[in-house]
């Protein structure tokens, strides 16, 4: 039972981690928070619903989610971030992206209504699985865990090895310096938004797959926790977001196990406040000049 809860926790944590990585990438490059992220996450679930409703295999939803969310991310970047580059701009940008999020929720609700929508896939996938060492493992959970972990490893490789990743790290280090060295900062920002949004949408798709339904009201609550996780792990640090997400997911599952589930919210935010007070840069963050200023 405990082992099953641990796996549930890892599955949940992997989703938190995907969202938190997105926040972290955007924060690293722009020093700004995006409140539209939570709604892009929510849209991911509905991409799954649409894919299943069109009769396509549900795994096809992953590329669809990546493309659709990527485009939404580019829109958010254009509307809410490109123009706000004054010192106080981070507040305005956050609120503007929040407004874009309102529009996204409303448009989704126009199509699918305000109630949760069931995913049109065979229910048998939730029961099929193996039993190993007395632990019941559903394939779907293993698949979700495997997909998300593969994405995270791929992302880490991309950030560390590829040209795009190098540019993103350079802009995160210093936008001005990288512009002087010939990096197209606008382009890098767009790439960052595309990647971050794609990750959030995949997380939303996974949540919808795990539960068998998509919910238009799930965004803010779920993604705000991921925001806290990003702060715990250290802003602008991908590893911190990954480990933080998995850790919080397991902690929450344990809280449910010991019947403290309703306090999971307090747990996450309390932990974040504690971490920020003791180590203001997060567990993995470095005290760069930017963070001291921010």
């Amino acid at each position: 039972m405990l082992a099953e809860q641990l796996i549930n926790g890892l599955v949940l944590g992997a989703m938190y981690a995907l969202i938190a990585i997105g926040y972290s990438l955007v924060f690293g490059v722009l020093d700004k928070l995006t409140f539209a992220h939570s709604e892009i996450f929510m849209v991911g679930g509905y991409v799954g619903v649409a894919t299943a409703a069109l009769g396509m295999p549900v795994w096809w939803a992953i590329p669809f989610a990546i493309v659709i969310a990527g485009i939404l991310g580019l829109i958010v970047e254009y509307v809410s971030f490109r123009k706000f580059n004054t010192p106080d701009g981070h507040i305005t940008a956050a609120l503007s992206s929040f407004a874009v999020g309102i529009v996204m929720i409303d448009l989704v609700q126009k199509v699918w209504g305000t109630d949760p929508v069931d995913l049109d896939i065979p229910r048998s996938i939730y029961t099929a699985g193996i039993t190993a060492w007395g632990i019941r493992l559903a394939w779907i959970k293993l698949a979700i865990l495997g997909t998300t972990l593969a994405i995270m490893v791929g992302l880490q490789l991309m950030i560390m090895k590829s040209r795009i990743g190098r540019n993103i790290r350079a802009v995160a280090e210093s936008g001005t310096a990288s512009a002087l060295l010939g990096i197209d900062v606008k382009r890098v920002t767009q790439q960052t938004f595309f990647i971050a949004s794609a990750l959030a949408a995949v997380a939303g798709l996974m949540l919808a797959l795990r539960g068998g339904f998509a919910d238009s009201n799930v965004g803010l609550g779920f993604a705000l926790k991921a925001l806290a996780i990003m702060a715990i792990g250290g802003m602008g640090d991908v590893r911190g977001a990954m480990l933080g997400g998995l850790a919080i997911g397991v902690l929450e599952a344990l809280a449910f196990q010991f019947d403290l589930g309703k306090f999971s919210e307090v747990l996450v935010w309390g932990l974040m406040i504690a971490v920020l007070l003791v180590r203001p840069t997060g567990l993995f963050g470095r005290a760069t000049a930017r963070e001291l200023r921010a």
Partner: protein
Amino acid sequence: MIGELATMTGFNILLAWSVYIILLSGTLSFANGAFMAIGAYVAGIVTVKLGLPLAAGLAAAAIAAAAIGLLAGYPALRTRGIYLMLVTVGLAAVVETGIQNIPYIGGVKGMGGMQGTTLYHIYGAVLVVGLALWKLTHSPLQRLLDAVREDERVAGALGVNVVYLQLALFCFGAALAAFAGGLYSHHMFFIAPDHFMVIVSVFVVLYVIMGGVNNMWGPPLGAIILTLLPELFRPVGQWRQTVYGVAIAALLLFRREGLMPFRIPSVRLRRNQESGSAR
């Protein structure tokens, strides 16, 4: 209908000012929805459970929120910028969950029986707070606060007790939000935790940013516009939310500094010329 709109506008003006007061020292708070909730519940407990008059409830609400603001603010204000924003969001989430899990005040189901707020109470409060802010705008304290907001390190180096100022204003803002919350609960007769979700705090901050953060008139203007805007969009029917969101994004894009970005000089011009560089 008109009365209800006027009431809501009044509440939102008070809340917007509560955020503005905290922002005077350069600190942005996303916790004011939580302080409002604390005020609403404390005032409700005092009037319904203890049977005391509304005035006692409101006083208790303001004091309780200021105390909590003091406790939460001291550690919170040690963090800066976006981190501070996150800590206040966290505070709001913790308060929401806390209220949901206290059976004495109804938990998730909410609590009822409060009454007695009239339009006069609300606009009386708006008038008093407005006058106080007007006095503040034309006082030396405003210059102190401007200095802290522009660069707290410079202000600190010049002998301003930055932490003390920020903490005091945080408590004042919390108390005002709680006061508004107390009035709100006694207007609504019934309150539940989901009336005060994090999203409420975000909207209040939005009023302030939309109106403009540099003078006391911006926040109420933002509150009035964003409270009445959805009513204007009634003709577009079911597209209201979308139009509302687009309107907010567009207003922020085209008035990046807010609708009223000007500063009110805190020293009158005539005296200014006499003393030369006193501005």
